């Protein structure tokens, strides 16, 4: 799609000139997905148009652990709204709601992103390391991470880990 995606690339190239210290390269969507599944560590920050972004974000999320753990945010000129990274497959599961077994990790990380956006990096760091150590320990994990805990148990463990 030479004109449409071409315009997107032109715009990116214009901005890149203002940040000479940051490396910039371009990659075609299908090639990108292929590389993501074989060697995701080669990517750092990826900027995409709308549809490809949806696909790439969900692919990357699947590789990294799923929608239950990944944070996200929506940023505008005047406002910002933070939510879990992707909603694929994790919205409206009545059974999980009833049993109170939803995974709160994604939203906790998203709130850490919000704290960073508000320029409270130390609070964000504390929150993130607490949640990360809970996951690392492996004792309090919800079903999508292979455990059997409830939401409350995960949150309690995170609070206990706050320093």
């Amino acid at each position, binding site marked *: 799609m030479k*004109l*449409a995606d071409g315009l997107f690339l032109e715009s990116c190239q214009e901005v890149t000139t203002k940040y000479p210290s940051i490396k910039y390269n371009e990659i075609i*969507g*299908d090639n990108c*997905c292929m590389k*993501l599944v074989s060697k995701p560590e080669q990517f750092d920050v990826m900027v995409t148009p709308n549809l490809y972004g949806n*696909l790439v974000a969900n*692919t990357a999320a699947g590789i990294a652990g799923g929608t239950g753990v990944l944070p996200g945010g929506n940023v505008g000129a005047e406002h910002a709204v933070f939510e879990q990274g992707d909603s*694929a*497959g994790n919205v409206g599961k009545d059974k999980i709601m009833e049993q109170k077994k939803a995974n709160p990790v994604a939203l906790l990380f998203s709130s850490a992103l919000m704290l960073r956006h508000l320029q409270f990096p130390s609070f964000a760091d504390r929150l993130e390391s607490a949640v990360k150590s809970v996951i690392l320990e492996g004792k309090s994990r919800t079903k999508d991470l292979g455990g059997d805990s409830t939401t409350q148990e995960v949150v309690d463990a995170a609070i206990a880990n706050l320093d």
Partner: protein
Amino acid sequence: MATHLLRRVLGSRSSQILSATNPNPNSALTVARAYSVDTTPIRATLFPGDGIGPEIAESVKKVFTEADVHIDWEEHYVGTEVDPRTQSFLTWESLESVRRNKIGLKGPMATPIGKGHRSLNLTLRKELNLYANVRPCYSLPGYKTRYDNVDLVTIRENTEGEYSGLEHQVVRGVVESLKIITRQASLRVAEYAFHYAKAHGRERVSAIHKANIMQKTDGLFLKVFLFLMIKYRLLDCKSMLPCINFGLVYLQCCREVAEKYPEIKYEEVVIDNCCMMLVKNPALFDVLVMPNLYGDIISDLCAGLIGGLGLTPSCNIGEGGIALAEAVHGSAPDIAGKNMANPTALLLSAVTMLRHLELHDKADRIQDAILKTIAEGKYRTADLGGSSTTTDFTKAICDHL
């Protein structure tokens, strides 16, 4: 000769033969099978291509000869001048050859630079009316990737969708791109998908889309699937299961039909879900059918799951039963002529060609030999982490036949 024609006719119209209109579909196929002992050689067009193309094409010829597959290869090369009849470097004779033989194998072709001609792939696609790109993706035993349990087939609509080439600048800085979905093209690829699933014993066909957002275009693509689901139900093909996610209008119809077949699971798959599920658990999928853009991305993603384009077979299906199998990797000019190239992709594509011709026994023999050779690990080309030459690898496959 007559049997050869019979097989060709059945090959291209087998979807109709398999339908309820033919009173004895089984007998027609057994007649074809009885005559399919290969005494008459099959004519096939071969485009060795550029770079490593000729070397890997040699491998295919060697393996086929060893396996007793009688194919008369008509070799064609990309010309050095633009043929005005085709507006590309592919000559009219090359295209006529494929149209006549109805079967072809294509190696990697380097894209010639310059203007005033169509790209090679575009020429082939338009002139031969190649409407479906089929890629069987299965994990190769012995070649470890992060995913061990991949066994799926991607079928991508290859003529329209987002790649219709209709873009225009509205004003400076604003571009519009048209996505075209037609009932005819959707029906054609969907019919092929169900036919393929039935012919190869697959159990599920999933239609991938974003009809919740693109309600009219993807919605039409899905409506076609509902139509076919009903059609195949009438044939009592209970193994046909489309996993469909409809735009809001068709959701109700889909659930109603699904209710009549409680033994079949009902699933809804949107493109973003599909991506996520593919990288978390590719075993969830069987046959995927997609419009052009999603198909482009998903089929490359699936190739990445099993080890990359160097190992992925691909086959393009055209109107009138034409099948053009191809290796989708590049021509690798840096290793051309050095006997280092990996012929796996072209070999596996040639196997899909044999399956299209319904020579399943030969196809299985050759495929098993290839998989065994890779699994053993003794002979592997450089890209798979080994140090064998192309000829050694080919010989190892022949030995395994």
